[in-house]
């Protein structure tokens, strides 16, 4: 069974020099778990330059462009927490939920993530998580809701 959020893709004590660096870290984790080809990372940077993936609540959702879809091996998430914060075009980002998605599952996935972030308590829990288990518990339901 392939899980959307692999525990190996949860990194809670990351540091980054800036937005692009944070995206490269996110991309490197997706590559490391075998979800995407290395070329996907460049499409993540392209997407971010075209339009910010900041969604609110200190969370950004870096992901590739449509052109990067073919570089996705399997749908996956990576959660990287930057306790020191990253300046995301003026918005402070603490958590990146990086997305690798081939098809349209992406809309349900974002809707499920948005529902979680709209709940202030759960959004704070995610920003303050220091245990991978807490992140898996918070974001785990996304897998069930998007699984067909």
């Amino acid at each position, binding site marked *: 069974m392939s899980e959307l959020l692999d525990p190996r893709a949860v990194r809670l004590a990351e540091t980054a020099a800036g937005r692009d660096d944070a995206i490269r870290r996110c991309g490197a984790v997706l590559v490391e778990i075998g979800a995407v080809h290395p070329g996907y990372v460049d499409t993540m940077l392209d997407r971010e330059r075209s339009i910010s*993936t900041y*969604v609110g609540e200190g969370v950004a959702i870096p992901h590739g462009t449509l052109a990067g879809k073919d570089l996705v091996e399997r749908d996956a998430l990576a959660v990287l927490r930057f306790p020191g914060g990253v300046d995301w075009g003026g918005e402070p980002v603490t958590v990146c939920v990086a997305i690798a998605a081939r098809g349209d599952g992406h809309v349900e996935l974002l809707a499920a993530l948005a529902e979680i972030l709209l709940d202030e308590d759960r959004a704070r829990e995610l920003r303050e998580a220091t245990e991978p288990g807490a992140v898996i518990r918070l974001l785990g339901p996304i897998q069930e809701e998007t699984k067909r």
Partner: protein
Amino acid sequence: MPTRTVTVGSASGLHARPAKIFVEAAAKAPVKVTIRSGDRRPVPARSMLSVLALGAKQGTEVILEAEGDGADETLDSLAALLAKDLDADHA
């Protein structure tokens, strides 16, 4: 209250990029706009998370509502934006 019913035109639905373009346009509008889908409660069109949480796909019908001066013009332009394929015009 001025209302528009629109069918989402973006090929992959109201996901990150189309949602952001829509939310930014709604934030610039002179009136408060709400968006809802089906029987769910209306949410602020300028809230990225609320718009993402709709989970609207291509073909999903959404309802825009606004009140006050300029409501009709605002709704017309936002409705036109939603009906377009916002994935098609890449920068």
